[in-house]
């Protein structure tokens, strides 16, 4: 295992210390509860927006804490959802009296822990709304599974919903927007290599020099199928087409195109994929009205990428464009 770390068991807390050292103007760290809280939280009268999940997906979620996005993030151990205590502490820390939105990625662990946290928070009289993201089209016949996983759309949703909350919208409206964004977005990812959980010390799975995994999750879960290595053009088709079909994108529609790196894939390769994706969308007369490219929802040092498409409406565009100031996403401020 080759990583820039000290003891595996300290990685998460030390990374938090790094965030605090570099971004004191944006956030504060509650080490005891292991949560990242927006520096000026709680904001009176503003809906609090929190998310959380296993670590190893950086910058998600801690990198999205700040003005116009998240009020707090709860990082669990690597690839392990956080515990209810963290979400409860975060909920308390960001509650400005207007209630708190929990953004939960659809993984059994995340869902169950956030459920328990919401129960506890409501028992304390804090109004909580929960939205579960489930945009991963790699998971088919979700009747026979834990349901589609929450992946790339989570990033876009946190930005748009965070912007709406910053604008002072009430909890119900913020939650409604979150559901709308989740409903209009789909993703699919692939891996060229596995990743290594620090505490495990060796790769979660093995991939041959000429193999790749299609339909990968963000936790080193194997994907739906293992196939021979293909060109960026072919890979882009394998990822984009299921997304486009599942969304039922029609000619003339506008999307936000999100080309995401899994952690070890350099930007030059992501731009090659972006050029292929642009061709595919052009071919279907779908317009890229907004875009995001980079490694924003990762799987440790996995090499690979994911494509997320979000069907945009004017309101989504307004809050996507709204000012945001976080460690990983910033504009307008």
């Amino acid at each position, binding site marked *: 295992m080759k990583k820039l770390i000290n003891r595996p068991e300290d990685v998460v807390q030390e990374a938090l210390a790094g965030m605090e050292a570099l971004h004191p103007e944006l956030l504060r760290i509650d080490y005891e509860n292991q949560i990242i809280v927006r520096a000026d939280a709680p904001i009176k009268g503003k809906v609090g927006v929190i998310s959380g999940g*296993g670590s190893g997906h950086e910058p998600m979620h801690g990198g999205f804490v700040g003005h116009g996005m998240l009020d707090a993030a709860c990082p669990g151990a690597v690839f*392990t959802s956080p*515990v209810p205590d963290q979400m409860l502490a975060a909920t308390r820390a960001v509650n400005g009296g207007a209630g708190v939105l929990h953004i939960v990625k659809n993984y*059994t662990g995340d869902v*169950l822990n956030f459920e328990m946290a919401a129960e506890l928070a409501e028992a304390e009289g804090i109004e909580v709304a929960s939205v579960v993201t489930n945009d991963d089209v790699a998971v*088919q016949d979700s009747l026979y599974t834990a349901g589609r996983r929450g992946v790339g759309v989570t990033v876009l949703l946190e930005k748009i919903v965070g912007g709406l909350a910053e604008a002072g919208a009430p909890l119900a409206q913020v939650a409604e927007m979150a559901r709308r964004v989740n409903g209009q977005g789909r993703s699919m990812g692939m891996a060229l290599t596995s990743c290594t959980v620090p*505490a*495990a010390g060796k790769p979660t799975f093995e991939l041959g020099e000429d193999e790749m995994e299609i339909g990968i999750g963000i936790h080193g879960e*194997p994907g739906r199928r293992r196939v021979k290595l293909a060109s960026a053009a072919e890979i882009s088709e394998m990822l984009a087409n299921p997304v486009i079909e599942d969304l039922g994108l029609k000619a003339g529609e506008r999307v936000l195109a999100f080309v995401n790196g899994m952690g070890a894939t350099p930007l030059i390769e992501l731009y090659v994929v972006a050029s292929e994706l642009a061709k595919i969308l052009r071919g279907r007369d779908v317009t890229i009205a907004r875009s995001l490219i980079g490694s924003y929802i990762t799987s440790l040092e996995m090499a690979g990428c994911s494509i997320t498409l979000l069907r945009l409406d004017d309101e989504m565009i307004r809050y996507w464009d709204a000012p945001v100031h976080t460690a990983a996403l910033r504009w307008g401020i």
Partner: protein
Amino acid sequence: MPITTEDTVRWIRQVARVLNEQRNFLTQLDSPIGDADHGINLDRGFQAVMEKLPSVAEMDIGSILKTVGTTLVSTVGGASGPLYGTAFLRAGMASSGKYELYEADVVHLLEAALEGVKARGKARPGEKTMVDALAPALLAAKEAVAQNLDIAHILLYTSEAAEEGMKATIPLLATKGRASYLGERSIGHQDPGATSSWLILKALADTYGHGV
């Protein structure tokens, strides 16, 4: 003779010891069909339990088990945290105030734990989860009680049934939890959670009655 608070404490200690020993094994089981952290998660949780245990060792069995449950909820995370946490919480409620557990109590305790897991996780038997170890274990316990067997044998059969249930998860196609994402590819692998459930029940059978 009944299960005493000493037996309970010894059981939990043994669970912590075994899960620590089997940490890598459980994590390996979680690699092909999961995210390679089950052993890490439970080991972290039960190490925390070991720190809490002394403070409640003198209390009633219910308090001990509830403490185990809340500690697991607070430290494990993942799917297994809320699930085992709820299991021990419910078991604790089913035995609150009690300093001794008799044959029937064992069944109630197991029943409460299984119901807790089912309520949280919405899993039915056959979905390749810990339920597939816990459900047969409960059945075995009920039968053993019906046959008026003593606690030692009730626990023995319970643990054996859990082991069979665990092995029976190998050919199953997962429809709950991370493994379900693999579809057909989940077949042929033993479920990590069912395995840890067996280890927990086996620890009870192994430690019951034997002094410290």
